[in-house]
């Protein structure tokens, strides 16, 4: 498992895009209807690339949608399309929850 930041594919977290960054969580933590901003992907380069080509890019907004019975896999709305991911994959996609107004940032 490689962390992509600092890799040849270079995904630097555009911190400026998130004024008050919420604590890091993963796509698995999203309930249906929740939205989050992608931070980085903790997957091997090739797998991460595949996700990026589908729109899972740092800074992009992801909304959790319907899922198969049991919540796995779940459909995510990202960059104008709907992509289903298994939990095992979604776990490695680190996001910051978009908190609707009530910013609860821990120091």
């Amino acid at each position, binding site marked *: 498992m490689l962390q992509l930041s600092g890799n040849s594919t270079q995904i630097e977290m555009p911190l400026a895009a998130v004024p008050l960054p919420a604590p890091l969580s993963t796509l698995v933590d999203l309930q249906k209807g929740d939205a989050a901003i992608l931070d980085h992907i903790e997957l091997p380069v090739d*797998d991460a690339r595949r996700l990026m080509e589908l729109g899972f890019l740092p800074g992009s907004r992801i909304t959790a949608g319907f899922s198969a*019975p049991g919540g796995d*896999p779940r459909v995510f709305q990202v960059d104008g399309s*709907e992509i289903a991911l298994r939990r095992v994959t979604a776990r490695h996609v680190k996001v910051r929850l978009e908190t609707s107004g009530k910013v609860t940032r821990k120091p």
Partner: protein
Amino acid sequence: MSECHDCAGCAPVAVLARPAAVRTVALVGPPNSGKTTLFNRLTGLRQKVANFPGVTVEQHTGIAEFPDGRAVTIVDLPGIYSLQPRSEDEQVAYDVLHGKRAGTPKPEAVLLVLDSTNLARHLMLAAPILALGLPTLIILNMADDLRNRGGKLDLSKLSQELGAPVALISARAGQGVGEVFDFLAGTMAKPAPTLLPVLQDVPKCREWAGAVGSKAGYRAPIAPKWTRRLDSVFLHPVAGPLVFLLVVVGVIRTIFMAAAPISDAAQSFIATSGKWLAAALPASPFSSLLVDGVWKGVGSVLVFLPQVLLLFLFIGILEDSGYLARAALIADRTMARVGLQGKSFIPLLSAYGCAVPAIMATRTIENKRDRIATILIAPFMTCSARLPVYALLIAAFIPERNFIGSVITTQVAALLGLYLLGFLAAVVTARLLKSSVLKSVQAPFVLEMPSYRWPTVQSLGLRLLDRSKVFLQRAGTVILLVTVILWVATYLPYSGGKPPIEHSLAGTVGRTIEPIIQPLGFNWKIGVGLITSLAARETIISTLGLIYGMDPDSQGMELQKSLRADLTTGGAFALLIFFAFAMQCMSTVAVVRRETGGWMWPVLQFAYMGALAYAGAFVAFHVI
């Protein structure tokens, strides 16, 4: 999964011989962008859809003809998101575009098909394609969807930004296809150099695509309302699986109930007309070949065409509408549990039609071990060649009674059970393989959910036409050939007259293997059928049709009746289970050898499936 790359049917097909100036154009685009719809539009029904069962190539080639008689070869490539090949189908696309694919000329131009309703992301693919430096037409497909859902863009501005011509079309509705022809007929100018992003850098590519889109005034359409609404049912935690179940039961029930009367009528027609034909023709070995071999033998397979077509109609509707992606999502849990990735699901579904294209479709699976595991279990899925055998035996041996109400009768339940049995065998085998020899790290499961669409009559019609051709071709080649050879074998040894059938060559072979199959409840006649069905499963029907037709005891009887006189109910169940498990298909063996690159896997697979079939049939015969 519409096209069957049937090895028995199609020898390597040569591209139509044309005057020297044939140009080759590649059709490229992301999955689900409508490439194949456009391909069919461009090449029309006159197309020569050639699957190249060569060593490696798996692109489709067709000819687009202009009114003036000139022609352009169009190569339909597998869907790609980028030009970074990871799986074998992407490798094919990459190789063809770079002129590295043996047997396919390097394309002189590219038709890049993008989904206009999701342009910003799809434009990412334009960067590596334009970087090839070939004349390129950017085709923005699904214009009708874009318009209906309130999206828009400035075409001339986009063309300027990309340095290449742009056409907004709807391949489904046939709008704007003329522009594509104009491009093909025109001079095909090379793209004007534009500033392209660093191709390896996905975020940069996306940024570039977004910038190009916004400069062209692209406004994305609103999300499709109907897709959300339908998904709230189809992906509902309770209603979803229920609908899934209803769809499966509904399809099987309809296949059995709607097509069975047609097949029954055709069957009794074959029997009566056979009698009439035999009476009308002067008695000679030749008339016997015609009546018993061709008419009763091959004819008894042909009567199952309605059932097979109905199956493909349903697969087509499910696939074209977008429901299949939801079904894949619902079934993914099961796949994960047996250690297979979600990507295996689509090839396995396709195996319900025919295992051959399914095995080729496994090329989309990047992981070698996952791919081999999927190849090995695909032939367990109930393919359309098993359907006639099942239909015949069930109709002959299972009395029609209500089982679960009148919705699922005993016959429908039996057919459902056989489909389930094949699936279970696949799942158990996968579990065994994945926990032993083919263990591997899971690759991420990524499945794009397309918006729901109405299937078009044109697309469904093409599929059915294609399937009819394959079915008739098989009946006219493999099955006819095997039947004629068998007919000859019933005349040998020829000494002034035909020997009694059980002492003929065919009978001797059958009686030689009889001791092996007797524990399964089969006699020598079924044994002969089992041997001939090694070529193709349906051949057992033509074989039995022929043997019963020649046997004085059963001559003139319908096939179902003769079978009932020959098999016990236990034997019939044993035969059904034998067919559910055994790998009786030369085309499948050949394609597995090719795709796995050697004889080891197909031989193991054949032996494993054969052993399972024998054991299953043995148990069935002794229990029932």
